[in-house]
């Protein structure tokens, strides 16, 4: 099949299916529609990769000018413009509905420049409007595969929900919009899809319609709309200065145009809000209130990933200005260290995961700041693996919430016995996010690159941050393993796991393990073609460099399996734990890293520093133009 057609299908199919499931009255029909969509999306994204691979091209470009609706050809640009205005109007309506002036102002601040721009560019065509390169393919694979698995998981998770029809419609449209954003070369299209994800995110966080949900949703909307304003102004600047709306042309322009840096800095700012980097992190923490599948989706394959996608996409432009590289890397490094420290003090699993997401995205952004071929490769590898592991972790946490009614890590003691399958999946999620070869593989490149390219402050934050990250994950791993010699639980405590949970968790576990074993192939067939097209060189092409990491993985699996097989436990071998001769009931000291340092204080410090860096980034962009 034609790659352009596949791309269009990946955008429109989920949207259509979403609307279709909304129209269907019966829940069973809706579920069938959503299920079919999920499978089709996975197949389509794989077909897209195959198409790219078999043509041997690094980049495929297409023009999509018209769409036939009832026999009448309507220009897609016009359609998107109309939808875009409708979207802005809806944002303003939300602002009025919730009596929130900030939302109204942000809505207007997007509406006005876009109105002017649409008027100015009327008749201007962008060719090609769709560009599919390997970065877009990687994103489409992550969105379509991980996203679909999460949606299938949600079929079970949201089983008893009253508003599930709307829920699934928004979830699937979300995937479509994400795919749309990564394929768009026309900046206005990209902006439209960007704002659709903002809307979907708002609707999903608001889903439960409680007071808290409304507040969190509104906060998310304010932050991400603010980023949208920056994006809108960036597009206006680009069009007025460079007279193009093609992202490709902007990136190859070399930054020689007057006012070239300012739009880049504005886009980076938009990406920071989307990726919830410090100081914009509070919306993602508030988003915890949403049902767990929503968190899984927002944190792994959509929303925040769009932010880092944009940064990777514009990374050649960030390299135009050295100070910009520095500042972008600093925002990432500050987010990484700050959230690691904050995560240590949390016991709520979702909150720990939220901080860890911000930190991991910080790592990716650090890579973009360092901007060498190694660093960008590391960024993409991190992006892929983080999506799989984080989705897996959120989904396991969701199952624990359903089956054991807790989100508190301290209460996950004995999980290995209560929900062995889930505990195993959770452990694999944690291992793959922090231990070899996932975390380490990219982390190693990143650290060495940072060191040899001369980013000393970044290295310092990175070194401390990674040690602290190991701390909070190890604490969590330990807690779910804590157990006596055997699992003799009353039958009532053991719960039987739904098939959908088993299949979806199993699929992600399989993805995680396969990706780690095939890390070299992932780099060779997915990452390298993109790096080659941008940098003209591929840093990693010999297998020997990754061999030790793969040996570590095999070592790990081997030790676990062999020890399980050969260490036998006979009753006479079991001893009891040492209690210092006393006999007392005790609760395990989960509060060891207690809040002697308050969250708010730490957050305040990091927000303060990060705000200075972000302001400095914008000032640099302005000053380089003025001087």
């Amino acid at each position: 099949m034609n790659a352009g057609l596949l791309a269009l299908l990946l955008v429109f199919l989920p949207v259509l299916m979403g609307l279709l499931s909304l129209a269907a009255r019966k829940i069973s029909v809706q579920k069938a529609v959503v299920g079919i969509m999920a499978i089709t999306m996975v197949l389509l994204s794989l077909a897209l990769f195959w198409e790219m691979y078999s043509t041997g091209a690094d980049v495929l470009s297409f023009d999509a000018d018209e769409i036939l609706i009832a026999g009448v050809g309507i220009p897609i640009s016009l359609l998107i413009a109309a939808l875009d205005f409708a979207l802005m109007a809806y944002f303003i309506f939300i602002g009025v509905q919730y009596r929130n002036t900030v939302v109204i102002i942000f809505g207007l601040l997007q509406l006005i420049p876009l109105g002017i721009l649409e008027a100015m560019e009327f008749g201007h065509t962008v060719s090609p409007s769709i560009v599919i390169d390997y970065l877009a393919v990687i994103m489409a694979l992550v969105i379509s595969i991980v996203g679909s698995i999460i949606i299938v998981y949600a079929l079970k998770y949201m089983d008893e929900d009253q508003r599930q029809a709307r829920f699934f419609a928004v979830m699937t449209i979300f995937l479509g919009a994400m795919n749309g954003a990564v394929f768009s070369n026309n900046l206005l299209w990209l902006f439209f899809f960007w704002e659709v994800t903002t809307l979907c995110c708002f609707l999903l966080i608001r889903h439960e319609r409680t007071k808290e949900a409304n507040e969190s949703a509104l906060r998310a909307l304010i932050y991400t709309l603010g980023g949208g304003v920056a994006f809108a102004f960036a597009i206006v600047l680009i069009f007025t200065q460079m007279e193009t709306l093609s992202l490709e042309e902007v990136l190859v322009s070399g930054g020689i145009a007057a006012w070239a840096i300012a739009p880049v800095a504005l886009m980076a700012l938009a990406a920071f809000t989307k990726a919830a980097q410090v100081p914009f992190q509070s919306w993602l923490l508030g988003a915890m209130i949403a049902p767990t599948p929503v968190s899984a989706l927002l944190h792994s394959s959509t929303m925040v990933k769009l932010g880092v996608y944009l940064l990777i996409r514009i990374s050649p432009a960030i390299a135009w200005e050295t100070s910009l590289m520095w500042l972008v890397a600093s925002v990432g490094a500050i987010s990484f260290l700050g959230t690691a420290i904050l995560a240590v003090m949390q016991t709520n699993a979702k909150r720990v995961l939220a901080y860890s997401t911000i930190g991991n995205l910080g790592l990716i952004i650090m890579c973009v700041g360092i901007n060498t071929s190694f660093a960008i490769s590391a960024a993409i590898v991190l992006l892929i693996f983080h999506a799989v592991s984080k989705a897996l972790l959120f989904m396991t946490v969701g199952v624990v919430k359903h089956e054991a009614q807790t989100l508190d890590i301290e209460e996950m003691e004995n999980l290995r016995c209560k929900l062995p399958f889930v505990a195993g999946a959770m452990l694999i999620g944690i291992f793959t996010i922090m231990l070899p070869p996932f975390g380490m593989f990219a982390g190693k490149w990143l650290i060495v690159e940072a060191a040899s390219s001369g980013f000393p402050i970044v290295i310092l934050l990175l070194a401390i941050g990674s040690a602290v990250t190991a701390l909070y994950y190890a604490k969590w791993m330990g807690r779910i393993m804590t157990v006596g010699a055997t699992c003799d639980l009353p039958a009532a405590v053991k719960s039987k796991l739904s098939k959908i949970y088993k299949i979806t968790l199993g699929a992600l576990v399989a993805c995680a393990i396969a990706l780690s074993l095939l890390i070299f192939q992932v780099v060779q067939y997915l990452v390298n073609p993109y790096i080659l097209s941008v940098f003209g060189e591929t840093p990693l092409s010999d297998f020997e460099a990754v061999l030790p990491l793969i040996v570590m993985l095999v070592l790990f699996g081997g030790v676990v399996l062999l020890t399980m097989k050969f260490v036998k436990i006979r009753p006479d071998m079991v001893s009891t734990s040492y209690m210092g001769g006393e006999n007392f009931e005790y609760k395990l000291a989960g509060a060891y890293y207690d809040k002697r340092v308050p969250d708010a204080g730490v957050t305040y410090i990091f927000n303060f520093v990060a705000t200075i860096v972000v302001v400095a980034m914008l000032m640099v962009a302005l000053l380089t133009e003025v001087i």
Partner: protein
Amino acid sequence: MDWWVLLAIQIAIIVLAPFLAAILLGLDRIITARMQNRVGPPVLQVLYDFFKLIGKKPMLLNRPQVIFAVLYLMFVAFAFVLFVLGLDLIIIFFAAAAGSVFLAVGAFTVRSPYSHMGANRELLQIAAYEPVFLLALLLIGIQAGSFNVADLYAVGDLMILLPLVFVALIAVLVIKLQKSPYDVATAHQEIVSGPYIEYSGPYLAITKLGHWYEFALMLGVITLFFNSDNIVVSIIVKIALIAVAMLVVQVIDNVTARLTKERMLKFTATFGIIVIAANYAIIVVLQNVGVI
């Protein structure tokens, strides 16, 4: 050198190094005893204990405990193997770091107050020394222009240019060897050897072997600091460096009392990082002046 001779030497080092490290720890115990006006145990007491432990009947609390002890041993041993093979220093660091995390997780898997306390403290220790260790390795790599251990052994002047990194590594060694003032995790008077408490017999022996490999790796890093074309000089100075490091660690151990975990974090985060940063600054200045 023929490849098989090299391989034989490498295998010999990999197998014997932990026991040599253990003998060094035996010497350490004697010297400590003499400093305290005691006679002290025989040099090989550490090894006698080890072999006695192996012969004991295995007792355990649960299976994951054993899994993580073995993982700890395998990962630190693997790190040491990579070091002997002359591979990438950063990967070696990661493998060893994963190993030490496994030790803490192993201690978490049992429901035991002292073990958990020890594991929490062990993690804090990791957070305290790991950044310093990593920065030290990075500075070595930057200075030598390569992160491959094999290349690093061909560089002669590390000690002259990185004396402060050497000082920082001694601070790391103090923590790694569970010596005062930073023996917070195993603090035998208060939490009775912390993460190790629920291990016994052969499983305790496994953790001990792991600990020796970690120690051997640290000593390996110390030997990177001086290299000479003359192999005899090279070996003598390397041994001298190890002796100096060990003596300093011992003196520190004997003249200090245990500090709190907060003090430990503060000390390494300030002293360790400042010392390395100062060394980095000196190198940059020297490079700009044109001395090196």
